[in-house]
């Protein structure tokens, strides 16, 4: 069965290694912070200038001067550092952030991603997404495998305006974990109870299935 948002977030959290600096986009990526394995530590970077993002504040801790990149009130964890936007993106652009997790409208077999603009709809802007996909060492895209009408989001070539080119190597959807390389999606894991046939059917870009494809353990 397709994973829930929380289950996708759980699977994402399994990717983290002890000592990783991680930037989590809005939505499912942010949920991953709740499922970091107990035996490792990761530190969250928020691109408005906070390394060591903590939990949401209790009511008596709320401070208008302490927000995250989603403009939500937040706290700083012990050992956090705070700095300017230029420093924050020096960190991101310079490849010092180990992991970025973000959502997308489309990803293609070249590792290109479209996530910020749908022509004909109002354009709100890319925020830090273009910098993040250009800068992080490892990028994970989380999204549903297909849209609500069943159209695949894993394409031969993105149709929407791009956020970045040749930068995505790993995708975690409600149906599967896939690696992007050699102009194809390599199926690595499938959601419990989801068949390879269903994944093939919902993947428009070239899909490679090699050997046994294990089910994810959530």
């Amino acid at each position, binding site marked *: 069965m397709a994973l829930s948002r929380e289950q996708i977030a759980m699977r994402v959290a399994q990717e983290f290694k002890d000592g990783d600096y991680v930037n989590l986009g809005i939505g499912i990526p942010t949920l991953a912070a709740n499922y970091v394995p107990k035996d490792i530590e990761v530190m969250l970077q*928020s*691109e*408005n*200038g*906070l390394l060591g993002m903590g*939990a*949401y*504040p*209790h*009511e008596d801790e*709320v*401070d*208008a*001067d*302490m*927000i*995250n990149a*989603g*403009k*939500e*009130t*937040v706290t*700083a964890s012990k050992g956090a550092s*705070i*700095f*300017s*936007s*230029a420093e*924050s*993106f*020096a960190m*991101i*652009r310079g490849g010092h952030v180990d992991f970025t997790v973000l959502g997308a409208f489309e990803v293609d077999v070249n590792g*290109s991603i479209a996530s910020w*603009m749908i022509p004909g709809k*109002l*354009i*709100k*802007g*890319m*925020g*830090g*997404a*273009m*910098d993040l996909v*250009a*800068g992080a060492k490892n990028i994970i895209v989380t999204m549903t495998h297909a849209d609500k009408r069943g159209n695949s989001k894993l394409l031969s070539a993105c149709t929407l*305006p*791009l*956020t*970045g*080119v*040749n930068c995505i190597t790993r995708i975690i959807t409600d149906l599967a974990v896939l690696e992007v390389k050699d102009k194809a999606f390599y199926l690595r894991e499938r959601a419990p109870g989801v068949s390879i046939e269903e994944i093939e059917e919902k993947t428009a870009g070239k899909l490679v299935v090699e050997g046994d494809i294990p089910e994810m353990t959530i």
Partner: protein
Amino acid sequence: MAGFNKVVSSYEEAMAGLQNNMTVIAGGFGLCGIPEGLIAQIKKMGTNGLTVVSNNCGVDGFGLGILLEDKQIKKMISSYVGENALFEQQLLNGELEVELTPQGTLAEKMRAGGAGIPAFFTATGYGTPVGEGKESRNFNGRDYIMEEAITADFAIVKAWKADKFGNCIYRHTAMNFNPMAATAGKITVLEVEEIVDVGELEPSQIHTPGIYIDRVIQGNFEKRIERLVTSKGA
């Protein structure tokens, strides 16, 4: 002898010289760390045709959003806009122009403007609409685009504490774009919560040295919260 005393006593004085069709860089991220009183003064002055460089354009009725009410802004250079219905309406009507710029590129363009770097290369935006019409070049096997610096006639900046020389520190994540904005204005105006005695700020802990600051004014801040999220329980 005024020496290095940059404190002004009125908002009129703080924004004196601002004229129609000028470019203004504003610090802040969303509603966090914005120079509330300086924005209000621009509204009061009615200056129009402005190009405003800021990561966001506030919300309806607060922050830079209030400059939309009388159509004072001609063009926004931002990474993320549209928290705000009036913005959307003016954009669709063609009354407002927007130049979307990736957040990190925007921060670096401001820093470059202040630092005498006319242009730099970044991988951000290569192969996307942001890279269209810009020079691209390969360094060590990777493709980059050239981005040019941004400077402005005025920079409006918000800090926590400053001395009369303009040396200042920012509070928590209200720092954001303010340090770069401070360097990139021909005239930089600093609105602060508190003016402290010279010597009170530890020299190596000053975020923005006074050399970048032309005028300092003490303000009163509402500090509206855009998205209040709290944890429940202990």
